[in-house]
């Protein structure tokens, strides 16, 4: 199969949806001739014009509100937060309006919108441009939270998100943008709310998200040579969360390591750990549930510190090996 980058896969999904459906449009900062800060929308303005690829002033609340209002009245907007951090300026529209309006109106309104957000560290952008904020939205009923880790899923999950009738927060990762992988050329959707077993193994279940799925796979390769086989599961959709494959895996391996880039304290991993501890897998656990996640700090500028602030391949290797060997 043809290989394309994560950025290209996202762009292809947007293009396909826009070609098929006049109700889809994109709105955000510098998404027109500039093509988006990370190039996702490059060239789309030439094809669809400035009324469907809408460059905005620097007004994040306005961007989010534009999506909510358009979604409420028959459109399927795709908004962009240039860096996911800036979503702090759009929280009201996303969490008090988009997420709640359907319920508040007795189920009589729909808000089919997607907000794409470029998240994560690793580019030296420092504390205000490198956060991983998905956990906030996992805590908000009415929203869906999607986090693709590969090009193929970037396309399939984005198309599914655009056609979902609920507001979807779609977290991309800056370091994934240039990663390549096989992506079918035709239209397809990857269902929301389905976890995926990315790699099968028997010694340890690893639940990872976004860039950490890629790192976990690299760690698995290394450990495989030592005879340790990781089973890697990528939830892909964090809300709703499909725990079934995770629980089944833990029942098989008896051990689990949860890995994400976001700060550990209060992060998504806590929810996964809690759901495992509440589940029928509890009795099968033969080691404590472990989380490997971002240090308790903002992302530093210095490249070396930055790399140390979030889980890298070698950290996953160490942690996984220890867990399997009973060192904890």
């Amino acid at each position, binding site marked *: 199969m043809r290989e394309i980058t994560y950025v290209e896969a996202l762009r292809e999904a947007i293009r396909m949806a826009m070609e098929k459906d006049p109700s889809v449009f994109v*709105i955000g900062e510098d998404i027109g001739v500039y093509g988006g800060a990370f190039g996702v929308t490059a060239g789309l303005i030439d094809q669809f014009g400035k009324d469907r690829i*809408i460059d*905005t002033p620097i007004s994040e609340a*306005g961007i989010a509100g534009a999506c909510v*209002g358009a979604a*409420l009245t028959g459109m399927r907007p795709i908004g962009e937060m240039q860096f996911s951090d800036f979503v702090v300026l759009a929280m009201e529209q996303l969490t008090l309006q988009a997420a709640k309006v359907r319920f*508040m109106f*007795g*189920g009589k309104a729909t808000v089919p919108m997607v907000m794409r957000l470029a998240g994560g560290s690793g580019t030296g952008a420092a504390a205000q441009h490198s956060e991983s904020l998905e956990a906030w939205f996992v805590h908000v009923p*009415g929203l869906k939270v999607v986090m693709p880790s590969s090009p193929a899923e970037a396309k399939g999950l984005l198309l599914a998100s655009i056609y979902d009738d609920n507001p979807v927060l779609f977290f991309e990762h800056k370091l994934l943008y240039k990663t390549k992988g096989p992506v079918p050329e035709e239209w397809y959707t990857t269902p929301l709310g389905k976890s995926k077993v990315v790699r099968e193994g028997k010694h340890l279940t690893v639940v990872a998200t976004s860039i950490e799925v890629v790192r976990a796979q690299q760690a698995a390769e290394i450990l495989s040579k030592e005879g340790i086989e990781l089973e890697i599961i990528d939830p892909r959709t964090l809300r709703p969360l499909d725990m079934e494959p995770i629980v089944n895996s833990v029942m098989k391996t008896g051990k689990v390591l949860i890995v994400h880039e976001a700060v550990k304290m209060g992060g998504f991993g806590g929810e996964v750990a809690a759901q495992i501890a509440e589940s029928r897998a509890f009795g099968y656990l033969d080691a404590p549930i472990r989380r490997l996640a971002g240090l308790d700090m903002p992302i530093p500028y210095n490249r070396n510190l930055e790399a140390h602030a979030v889980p890298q391949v070698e950290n996953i290797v160490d942690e996984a090996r220890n867990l399997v060997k009973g060192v904890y």
Partner: protein
Amino acid sequence: MVNSQAEGLIGGVFTREKALDLIDTMLLVRSFEENAEEMFSLGKVHGTMHLSIGQEGVAVGTASALRPRHDYLLNVHRGHGHFLAWGGDVNRMMAEFTGKETGYCRGRGGSMHIADVEANNLGAQGIVGGNMPISVGVGLSIKAHQTDQVALCIFGDGASNEGAFHESLNMASIWKLPVIYLCENNAYGMSMSIKKAINVPHISDRASAYGIPGVTVDGNDVVEVYKAMKLAEEYTRSGNGPYLVEAETYRWKGHSKSDKQAYRTRDEVKEWMSKEPIQRFAKVIGMGEEEVEQRRLTAREKIKKAVEFAESSPEPAVKDILEGVYA
């Protein structure tokens, strides 16, 4: 154009039939609010509410200039009057106010979130200024669908200091969106006098920061509200972009359920009560005290029936509690 001299028309603009309709709607709003206050004090309603007594002129003057159900309404927390003026059904409204399954929002929303999406009424707002960014999206949607609709976005004087006001008016302006921004200036944002909250004479003065028209009008004069809104409507509906109308009015009651009103004087309240919109409009149309009272009784009767409807309606079933969170 509005022909203010049109022969035989009341205030130059309304047929007698229309004028009676407006007075009846104002009386209905007044009765709804009085009843709401009473129910509240009797403990029959849980939660809070924001009464619009004294502000009825803005609601009926505005709706009469637009095309309710065709146009979009983005209502404000103090929105009972606008809801009724937009043609809302008083029974289902009362049912929502009392949290019943037959209410517009199945009892999930209450006074602050009452909506009638089918009638393009996108609901009242619990968040000051929260409907303003949404209005940008509605405007974009109208443009994309190429209809001749406009969106009416209503907010209070206090809301004009939220960042959302700024971002929204700017976006609406640069994209020439068909949105009429109606600022209902009732002199206070809760306890904060607008005189302390801003440093310009009128909120409409802020329109110039976005290059859009802004006017201030006497909100207790139904005819003036109608005329101003009609100008705004014509401007906006013909594709010229957004328009800001500030309607000066006053709320007679406290901000919400528990307000000692230490921030204003009784005299100030009294003075504004003398500028009451209903009696004022009655005079314009030459309606006597007696007829007003008669019509008031009719309005009260409707409210009584609405209360009966609401009271005899079922509570939402607990088993359905999770319904409506997701589509």
